[in-house]
């Protein structure tokens, strides 16, 4: 299955991109998707347990992904 990972702010900087299509086995969790991102050039600079959102809602790292999900990796927010 395919999941679209979105990267923002400092995370987009370290991975030098703001979007990655990930190919994952059925039943994969957020944690497995993050492991794939860490394997990319610069991915080692992501923190051990970043905030994530699946389809625009905050999610835990054991959430199970399904084909077509949008997985956002969210740096510390700084609005206001």
């Amino acid at each position: 299955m395919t999941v679209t990972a979105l990267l923002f702010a400092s995370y987009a900087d370290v991975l030098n991109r703001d979007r990655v299509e990930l190919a994952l086995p059925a039943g994969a969790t957020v944690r497995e998707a993050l492991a794939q991102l860490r394997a990319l050039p610069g991915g080692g600079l992501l923190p051990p347990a970043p905030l994530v959102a699946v389809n625009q809602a905050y999610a835990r790292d054991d959430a199970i992904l399904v084909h077509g999900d949008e997985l956002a990796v969210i740096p510390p927010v700084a609005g206001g």
Partner: protein
Amino acid sequence: MRTTIVDRPIDPAVLLAEVADARNGAAILFLGTVRNVNDGRAVTGIEYSAYREMAERELAAIAQEAAERFGTRDIVVEHRLGALALGEVSVAIAVAHSHRAAGYDASRYVIEELKRRVPIWKREAYVDGTREWVDPTAQPSVMSS
């Protein structure tokens, strides 16, 4: 009730007019503005970016929560994205209520939740020409303590 992510200057008078109602005895407007110093460093401007669709959802959810908890639907929030100069308004929260105590509490709730969970980021530009993403979870530097 209205919550909007905008790409243009925020006009506080528009928000105040939207929450005005003869049932209300109090209006509270909060403005976040770009400071010239942060964590001990001289700032020249800030660039705001967002996970826009999710930021819109979270902002709307926060306003809805505030409405339910504090008993008013007269809540309008705008957050601006893009490059802002010193003193410009990045966020405006207008709340009107029949009674002031609940109005203040609702205003406070919206700004605290916004800062906690709305996916918006800011990159500060400094007088020395460098730029850095702001991480509110980081330890402040010795200079600012």
